[in-house]
């Protein structure tokens, strides 16, 4: 800019000097025309012409310099703009790369993912918006976790608080039935209905409690070395009366020399009783149910098979989910809670085992529990 201003001043000086030179030449020519000192007048005319030539040479040189200067300035400006642009891109690229990386972490579940806010105001705004969004997600996840905990606490507390009054109802109904001879048949039947329903409520409560525990990560087992055969025999013995009551057969087949398993006896018994109860309730009167216990060295397998109506394929896929039950008509007849198999699955998995079901509609179903055997050195010698 200074170069240009100086050039404009030089141009002004040049024009003024040229104008004065013309003025001097005109005065010399007038003197020559009047015949006053013609030699001196001629010399003055030539001198003024030379002076203007010198002025023109000077101004054109100055013009050229200035043009060069302006051109260089332009180039410098363009270069600067280009550099600025490159800088702009790189100053945008870093924050954008950070954003991409942080978005990936956030999507991957790392709710602590944040970006450092800086750089251009636009990327800083974007970064701040991202952080705000991540913070909001984290806050909501925290709220959801808290709600989950509250729900678990609620179910645990509610089932605990319901247990005392149910204890009274069940206990006094049992007390009345102990003196059945003092009741007329209608009264005795009424008390039995109260008792049946109370037991169903207790079963539902226990199942809900187990599920709440499972959700809260508080469903635990205390495994001890256990003879699977004895455990299965015990469960079958417990259930025998219910099968007899419906005219169903209950066969038990146990392979000799089975390895021991690490089991929480009460909990594994609960699983077996659940499977047997389902067979008992879902199979028609007179059906045949078989329990088979086998071992293949690494695992002990307990199969509960029936020749009942079977389970349609679309139901079979969801059978270990909560409140997944047979069709509505069956559900009315059968007194289950729809939670038994979901709990059984949790319990078997806590034992490090697996549970599965196979069924052919019209031919029957098989529920298969596999539990890892305890590696036993003396057994290794035998085999």
């Amino acid at each position, binding site marked *: 800019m200074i170069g240009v201003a100086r050039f404009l001043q030089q141009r002004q000086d040049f024009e003024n000097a040229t104008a004065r030179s013309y003025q001097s030449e005109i005065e010399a020519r007038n003197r020559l025309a009047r015949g006053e000192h013609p030699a001196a007048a001629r010399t003055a005319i030539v001198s003024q012409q030379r002076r203007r030539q010198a002025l023109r040479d000077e101004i054109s040189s100055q013009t050229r310099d200035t043009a060069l200067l302006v051109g260089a300035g332009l180039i410098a400006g363009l270069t600067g703009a280009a550099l600025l642009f490159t800088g702009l891109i790189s100053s945008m690229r870093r924050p954008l790369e950070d954003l991409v990386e942080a978005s990936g972490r956030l999507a991957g579940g790392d709710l602590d993912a944040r970006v450092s806010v800086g750089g251009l105001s636009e990327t800083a705004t974007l970064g701040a918006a991202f952080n705000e969004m991540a913070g909001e997600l984290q806050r909501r996840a925290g709220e959801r976790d808290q709600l989950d905990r509250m729900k678990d606490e609620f179910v645990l507390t509610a089932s605990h608080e319901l247990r*005392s009054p149910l204890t*009274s109802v069940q206990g006094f109904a049992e007390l009345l039935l102990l003196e059945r001879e003092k009741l007329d048949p209608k009264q005795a039947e009424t008390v039995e209905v109260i008792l049946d329903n109370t037991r169903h409520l207790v079963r539902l409560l226990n199942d809900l*409690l187990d599920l709440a525990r499972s959700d809260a990560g508080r469903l635990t087992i205390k495994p001890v070395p256990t003879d699977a055969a004895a455990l299965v025999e015990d469960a079958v013995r417990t259930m025998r009366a219910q099968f007899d009551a419906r005219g169903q057969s209950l066969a038990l087949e146990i392979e000799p020399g089975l390895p021991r398993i690490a089991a929480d006896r009460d909990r594994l018994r609960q699983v077996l009783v659940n499977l047997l109860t389902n067979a008992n309730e879902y199979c028609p009167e007179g059906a045949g149910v078989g329990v088979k216990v086998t071992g293949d060295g690494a695992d002990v397998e307990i199969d509960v098979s029936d020749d009942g109506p079977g389970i349609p394929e679309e139901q079979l896929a969801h059978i270990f989910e909560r409140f997944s039950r047979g069709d509505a008509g069956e559900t009315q007849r059968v007194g289950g809670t729809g939670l038994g198999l979901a709990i059984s699955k949790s319990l078997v998995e806590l034992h490090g085992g697996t549970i599965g079901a196979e069924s052919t509609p019209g031919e029957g179903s098989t529920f298969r529990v596999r539990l890892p055997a305890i590696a036993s050195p003396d057994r290794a010698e035998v085999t």
Partner: protein
Amino acid sequence: MARILLADDSETILLLLRTRLEMEGHEVETAADGQQVVDAVRAAAPPHDIFLLDAMMPRKSGIDALRELRAEGVETPVLIVSAHTDGGNGDEHADLEIAGYVSKPIDFPRLFARIAELT
């Protein structure tokens, strides 16, 4: 037949348990909280054969009462009645020498069998 000290903060549960235990021929004294348990044990002559204590009672719980009594050298066997289905943790109060846990609703034949074993 055993002399039983029975504690629960619910009058209904006390009535139920007392009725069933007396029908079995046991002699039953009742307490409504932990302090009454401690007082009843100190005053008892002859001493009780077994304590049947609710784990959770207002003011002083069955567990707190038992801790106090064990510190006084009382060695009477004890069954803890609990609303928890898992019947307590077992190792939780190892120092209190708890003979067993009874979960609600109460399986009476099983309870009677346990009392017979312990007295």
